[in-house]
């Protein structure tokens, strides 16, 4: 009986969320999730997940910067550099902070340069998944 009422409660909560899934609100959730990884989850009441993302993803990005990785430009003449640039920007605010501090210039002579690039790009790509998860929650799919 307890599990039935829990299931009914979850379904009701999902219904309420679905009803409040206005496009404007969804766009705000996505924008907040992009700018501050995990903050969208926190605003949607998923505290535990949000705090993990809020700590882990910027930390991964910071490790990439410490390893002398490079933040790539959005250069359409080189598709791979362009894609790298897109991935870098996926992390949101930490990217702009790094640019403001002139970090992420990249030093190709450093032994961990490629590892640094991998950390920087992966942090951004993982945040894209986090944004999609927040969107699913906001739409009542999860």
């Amino acid at each position, binding site marked *: 009986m307890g599990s039935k009422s829990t299931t009914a409660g979850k379904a009701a909560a999902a219904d309420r969320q679905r009803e409040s899934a206005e496009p404007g609100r969804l766009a705000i959730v996505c924008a907040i999730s992009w700018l501050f990884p995990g903050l969208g989850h926190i605003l949607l009441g998923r505290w535990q*997940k949000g705090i*993990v993302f809020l700590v882990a993803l910027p930390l991964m990005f910071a*490790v990439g910067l410490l390893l002398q990785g490079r933040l790539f430009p959005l250069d359409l003449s080189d598709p791979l550099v362009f894609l790298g640039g897109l991935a870098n920007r996926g992390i949101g605010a930490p990217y702009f902070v790094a640019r403001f501090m002139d970090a992420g210039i990249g030093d190709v002579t450093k032994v*961990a340069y490629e*590892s640094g690039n*991998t950390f920087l790009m992966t942090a951004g790509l*993982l945040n894209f998944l986090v944004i999609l998860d927040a969107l699913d929650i906001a739409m009542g799919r999860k």
Partner: protein
Amino acid sequence: MSHFGLMVLYAFFVSLTFAVLLRDTLREQLKTGGMMLGAFIVVAYVFGWLMYPFPL
């Protein structure tokens, strides 16, 4: 830090994020994250040894 250490650190961050994304309870997250991290390390080790006789 060694390349192996960097790989373990990378695997840790990726496993943590996927485990938290895919599972809802702490117990399930720890189990999934641990298995993913272990798989990362084992596969890297196996591929490392497979590449040993065939250096680039």
